[in-house]
């Protein structure tokens, strides 16, 4: 879940998100070093008495500052593409859950075996119990089994929405008339929060998503009580 004064990502709960965090650290370090170098060179430019203004060519330095950035870009692109393809690997999901975005709530359908449907509305601030998170809690959480690959099919009944769970590295648009698919694999049980990520009207900020990852036996018991 997000915390006050947060500047980085939330802790990873899926293998893909771990890879993304690792890649982000790698890219940020490169950015940091390049920025330091540029800052230093600017300070050099501003503190020199050398004012030679008729330089016609500078082959050596031009070669260096073409080849070196190309190498740096390749060093960024290769891990990036590796993660991109890793996200599209074929896996065999054991469960399929459908979620439909509405103005302004999410509805979930677990229809693999029985017909389980429910809506998930945000709990208004006045009705929160002490300790609950403002604008993030919902009345019916999405309970899912932990350590299992789950297929999420996401669409919308009216306008564009976006189904997001940052801790799992998921963000998929909910587009009316289109079915988008994403796979989810949580490695730790717990509560994971997300918010609608595509502007959809006046209550766009008030339709959160809460995933409750639990062991399979608890998931089975929960689904029986919800039927």
């Amino acid at each position, binding site marked *: 879940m997000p915390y006050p004064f947060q500047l980085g990502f939330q802790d990873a709960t899926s293998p893909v998100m771990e890879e993304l965090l690792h890649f982000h650290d790698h890219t940020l370090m490169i950015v940091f070093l390049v920025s*330091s170098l540029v800052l230093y060179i600017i300070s050099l430019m501003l503190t020199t008495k050398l004012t030679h203004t008729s330089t016609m060519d500078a082959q050596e330095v031009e070669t260096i500052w073409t080849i070196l950035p190309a190498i740096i870009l390749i060093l960024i692109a290769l891990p990036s593409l590796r993660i991109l393809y890793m996200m599209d690997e074929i896996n065999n999901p054991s469960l399929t859950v459908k979620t439909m975005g509405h103005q302004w709530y999410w509805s979930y359908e677990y229809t693999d075996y029985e017909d389980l449907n429910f809506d998930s509305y945000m709990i208004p601030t006045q009705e929160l119990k002490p300790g609950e998170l403002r604008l993030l809690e919902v009345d019916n959480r999405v309970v899912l089994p932990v350590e299992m690959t789950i297929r999420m099919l996401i669409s919308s009944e009216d306008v564009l929405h976006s189904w997001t769970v940052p801790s799992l590295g998921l963000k998929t648009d909910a587009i009316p008339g289109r079915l988008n698919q994403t796979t989810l694999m949580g490695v730790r049980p717990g509560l994971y929060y997300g918010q609608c990520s595509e502007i959809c009207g006046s209550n766009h900020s008030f339709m959160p998503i809460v995933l409750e990852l639990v062991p399979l036996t608890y998931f089975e018991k929960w689904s029986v009580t919800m039927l």
Partner: protein
Amino acid sequence: TFKLLGILDVENIPCARDSVLYGSLGSVVAGLGHFLLTSRIRRSCDVGVGGFLLVTLGCWYVFHCRYNHAKLRIQERMAREGIKNKILYESTHLDPQRKPADGSG
């Protein structure tokens, strides 16, 4: 929280704090050493910055940091898979440590 250059959260990224600290140390050593040897100020500053970049990069990528972290992460994942599989396959026909049954089931 302290953020280097306003963006890099050195406190929480593994290896970042060590890399930046070693980089700063390397920068001071290289710059000061060069100045003591040659007494050229501007060139020593350049050597200092260059030393910072190289030592930070070296420590971050090569020496004991990301490389080892990557190896550790792979080992962690293998161990986790191994534990899960052991529980899953224990005493089934897929268990590699199963002793052959002696007829009484």
